[in-house]
């Protein structure tokens, strides 16, 4: 069995009890790590997205550790499956990226990520036999207009929420999803942020799915090397 040092996150070097993972500290920064058998990660598959699949269990655990740290300190989550050579490698990384990592931690401190998804509503089924040709064309036009209005509404939701967050990002859209946004929101502005979602969705007749709070996963896309 080969063993490695699984790294979950970069945070500030404080005393945090994590029941398992521990912190390797270096000049005020720390890497949250745990020893793992690397075989657990070999051949991970993503066929069935079931809760009890090995990938799901490991990903949920990764998220749980990041969240446990995030409860106490600002955190830079590392991408799933980051395994380091050993403690020396961890110290080299923290040393080489000290300034950058500190700046990133300052940037996300006191903020949490929220996900907002807006879908197009499935239109009500229509009995075509009961429709004349004119009525059918009118319905088609009315639905095109409605779809257009909903798309514009989703875009205005994104603009309004972007104004109420420190940072925002939008994922590529697929299927019936009209908005898939992530927002990094100051904790003291969260109430205002959620009130704005409620107000806009009511006003525009949209339904929003909200996820979160998340650690700032979507706002820490950066590469760190040890040199």
């Amino acid at each position, binding site marked *: 069995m080969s063993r490695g040092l699984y790294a979950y996150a970069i945070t500030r070097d404080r005393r945090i009890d994590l029941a398992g993972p521990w912190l390797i500290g270096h000049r005020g920064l720390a890497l949250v790590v745990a020893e793992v058998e690397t075989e657990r990660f070999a051949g991970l598959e993503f066929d069935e997205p079931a809760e009890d699949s090995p990938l799901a269990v490991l990903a949920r655990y990764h998220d749980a550790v990041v969240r446990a740290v995030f409860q106490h300190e600002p955190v830079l989550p590392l991408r799933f499956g980051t395994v380091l050579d050993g403690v020396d490698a961890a110290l080299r990384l923290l040393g080489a990226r000290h300034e950058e990592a500190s700046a990133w931690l300052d940037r996300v401190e006191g903020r949490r990520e929220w996900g907002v998804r807006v879908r197009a509503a499935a239109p009500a089924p229509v009995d075509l036999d009961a429709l004349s040709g004119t009525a059918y064309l009118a319905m088609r036009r009315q639905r095109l207009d409605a779809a257009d209005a909903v798309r514009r509404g989703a875009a205005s939701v994104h603009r309004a929420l972007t104004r109420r967050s420190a940072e925002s990002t939008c994922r590529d859209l697929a299927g*019936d999803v009209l908005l898939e946004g992530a927002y990094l929101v100051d904790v003291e502005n969260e109430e205002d942020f959620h009130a704005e979602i409620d107000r806009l969705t009511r006003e525009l007749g949209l339904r929003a799915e909200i996820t979160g709070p998340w650690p700032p996963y979507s706002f820490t896309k950066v590469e760190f090397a040890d040199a």
Partner: protein
Amino acid sequence: MDNRSSSLADTLERVLDKGVVIVGDIAVSVVDIELLTLRVRLFVASAQTAREMGIDWWENDPFFAPRSAARQLAAENAELRDRLAALERALEENRP
């Protein structure tokens, strides 16, 4: 902060596709992360298309599948032509 309420897709998408990436000699490659991430992206995209609506709700909706409407209209047309023909025959027969 319990996270059971977040869907597995949302969690996987963030944990696998986001966050700080460590590169260079210090990182050991233990998992084909690119492949897993690609699969998760595909899963998320397809889940978005089909989720909660049943996979085929649009198939019989004339707006999203105009061809199903065309088929129904063609059938309606044929039926109307038959009825018209029947009426014309009836008229012929009743002519003095």
